[in-house]
């Protein structure tokens, strides 16, 4: 080889190395660590392309407040644009996706065909500020939050502050009830009177995460937020109740301050000040819940525990209260981290998706689980898998949903 040819080869090799480096920087080809950049609704995110990230079904979630889906073949699709969307939930028959559209000062409860299409507003919280001489103005706006389907695919649980105009000051509290409570609406007749499902405690924001128990159409679980009797510490518990208890016992139950509020619910977790158990998600068979617990100021964990049967009909019977609380001791810690939240089971119960936090960014993660046939105890199989690399675009305060 002549000197000239030698130099040419050197240049070719150098150029090849530069091209390979650029390939990585520009996201061409396989991408970094198995992630490939994909576009959805004008947004680009990384999607894990490895075999470990394969799953059945589709996960609904929001990116920069737009509704998107990620399927098990790593395809991503955008369903809404130019709306502030939160908390998608797909009906059991797969036809509809319900979600919240957020506006300044209020929100709407909406449904849409699950693959996208015309949005139908079931309830709008639009309102106005009304002068209240000598005081801050009152508002006629309403919030709606976190829709969740009944098993008939015709009824939706949701949260709202609808009662604030009617629930005035009461014993132990001198304020209107602004805190969100749980209601139910029929999508076939949204103008019918809404059914009150669960009452709230004053002053701590109300209830969250309501959903029906699979295969138990009369049972609803939710996170109940309250202050303790000293009014200085949080008491955050998971409650289970008969969805028809309030309607079937008019005048018996009531919202209110701690000590006055009277619920038809039983507690699945202890009423310990500063103990926070939240965001329950029933396994597809309805026998267990995955939920989040705050471990300390800098750590949270996802636990799974069994749930007792037949504890919603006599919620004030001490024996029933004890029975409902007993399974809590069998809670198994599956995952922990600085921020770890919003568990969502796969339809077959072998995995759950959740929102994890890594490199100062929230992303969708997936964990494989196995259940011991004898004990019913869940454990993690293998290492959790990061499904997305969204660069901060994932909305961690919006509950994801996994459909078949």
């Amino acid at each position, binding site marked *: 080889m002549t000197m000239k040819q030698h130099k040419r080869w050197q240049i070719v090799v150098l150029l090849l190395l530069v091209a390979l480096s650029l390939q990585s920087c520009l996201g061409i080809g396989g991408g970094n660590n198995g992630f490939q950049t994909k576009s959805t609704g004008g947004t680009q995110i990384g999607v894990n392309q490895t075999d470990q990230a394969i799953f059945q079904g589709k996960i609904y979630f929001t990116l920069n407040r737009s509704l998107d889906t990620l399927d098990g073949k790593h395809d991503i699709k955008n369903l809404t644009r130019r709306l502030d969307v939160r908390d998608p939930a797909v009906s059991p028959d797969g036809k509809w996706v319900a979600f919240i559209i957020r506006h300044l000062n209020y929100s709407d409860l909406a449904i849409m065909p699950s693959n996208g299409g015309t949005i139908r507003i079931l309830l709008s919280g639009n309102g106005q500020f009304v002068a209240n001489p000598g005081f801050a103005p009152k508002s006629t706006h309403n919030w709606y939050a976190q829709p969740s389907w009944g098993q008939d695919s015709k009824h939706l649980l949701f949260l709202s502050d609808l009662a604030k105009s009617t629930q005035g000051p009461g014993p132990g509290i001198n304020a209107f009830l602004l805190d969100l409570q749980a209601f139910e609406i029929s999508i076939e007749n949204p103008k019918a009177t809404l059914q009150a499902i669960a009452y709230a405690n004053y002053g701590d924001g109300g209830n969250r995460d309501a959903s029906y128990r699979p295969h138990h159409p009369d049972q609803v679980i939710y996170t109940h937020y309250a202050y303790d009797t000293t009014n200085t510490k949080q008491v955050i518990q998971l409650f289970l109740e008969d969805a028809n208890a309030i309607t079937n016992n008019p005048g018996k139950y009531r919202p209110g301050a701690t000590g006055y509020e009277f619920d038809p619910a039983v507690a699945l977790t202890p009423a310990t000040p500063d103990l926070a158990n939240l965001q329950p998600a029933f396994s597809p068979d309805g026998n267990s819940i995955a939920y989040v617990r705050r471990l300390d100021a800098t750590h949270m964990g996802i636990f799974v525990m069994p749930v007792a049967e037949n504890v919603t009909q006599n919620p004030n019977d001490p024996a029933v209260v004890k029975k409902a609380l007993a399974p809590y001791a069998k809670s198994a810690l599956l995952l922990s981290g600085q921020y770890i939240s919003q568990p969502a089971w796969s339809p077959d119960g072998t995995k759950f998706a959740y929102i994890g936090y890594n490199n100062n960014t929230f992303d969708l993660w997936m964990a494989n689980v196995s259940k011991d046939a004898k004990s019913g105890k869940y454990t993690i199989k293998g290492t959790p898998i990061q499904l997305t690399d969204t660069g901060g675009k994932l*909305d961690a305060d919006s509950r994801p949903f996994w459909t078949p």
Partner: protein
Amino acid sequence: MVVVAGGGAWYYQTNFASHLNSITGQQAANLSSKKQNTGSQSQAPAGVSKSASIGNKRVNILLLGSDNDAKFQGGAPLAQTDIIVTIDPTTKYVGMLSIPRDMRVNIPDGIAAPNKLDTAFAYGWQYVHVGPTAFSNAVGLSMLTIEQNYGIHIDHYAWVGLDGFIKVIDTAGGLDIDATHPMVDDDYPNDVNNKNAYDYKRLYIAPGPQHMNGVQALEYVRTRHSDLVGDFGRSARQQQVISQLKTKLDTPDIINKINELAADLDGYVKTDMQLPDLVNFMNYARSLDLNKVDRAVLSPPYSSMARDNSGDYLPNCALIQPKIAQMFALGDNAKCEPVNATRKAGIINPVGSGPDNSESKVAQTQVQDISMQSFSQMAQVSTMSLQEGTNDPLGVRSLLDLMFVVVFDSLDGSKV
């Protein structure tokens, strides 16, 4: 060594000096004498101590916060936060007195009829022409209003525009917070980036981990109606945000953003203290056991709502006067001026007929005077940082902490 020092000086002058010089050494108009104030940074108005060093004498520092500062482009900002920090170094007593924005006060010298305390800043801005700038007049009138209504002499001030807090949070990349519980507020003051200073908005913040930008983080710490326990819950949330801010500002790559942070503060933080004195003050604040700070807020029972539909609060002087006497060691010099129970419309009586209040004219005059002064301040602050191990060689961290103290209405902000 000479080359390194010279390079450092050049770097400081190029990237920081103009920002820091428009923040520190901004004298308030001295309205008690009403002599025309030049506003020169090299001269402190009569009666106002130039140094805020924590020496042997009690020092009272007025902290002001505005929610719609409008960047001094016109309009008259209100000062929604009025806190007086008093420090007695000999007894190590530290007190923080918060006066609610809606407290009715007598506006000095009949400039305007009695009105809410937050209007004193606006009246000074619009109708006082003693100091060289509208801002200096606004601060001067706020200081005089407090002195005349309560007998508290103000030695120094620091003013913060809340927009600056939002900018700093956004420059730091936002915050990731685990919101403790759902937050519902039907009457959150929607006064940032809003021409209507008395507008409202509703909040519903979901609980759990989430990313917050500057506006959202401000809403999270400011909302007062989202907890049954009001300010107690707010304090807990502020602790969370402070902890997250500390994490963000302690990361190595924040060094790359320090110039941007200094720029964020420019226009949103002003104080008459010189930078070394400010650093001294913040170092002192950081050393405090916050459980021993004597806090008082002149909300009920120190005040009660007026019945004239004005939304004002009337002072309960029987309780206020002894409290002020105790906190500020004023004895018989403590005051509490009674005010009319019914607010009456009054004539505005502007004060002074000073030169053009243009900020740019004052800035131009000051540039030549301060270049050497700013370099020597930088050297002094750097030396202090090295000696005390505070990792604040340019004083930017102390300015940020000062902002957080005002935004959080608490010396907890100095612990970021």
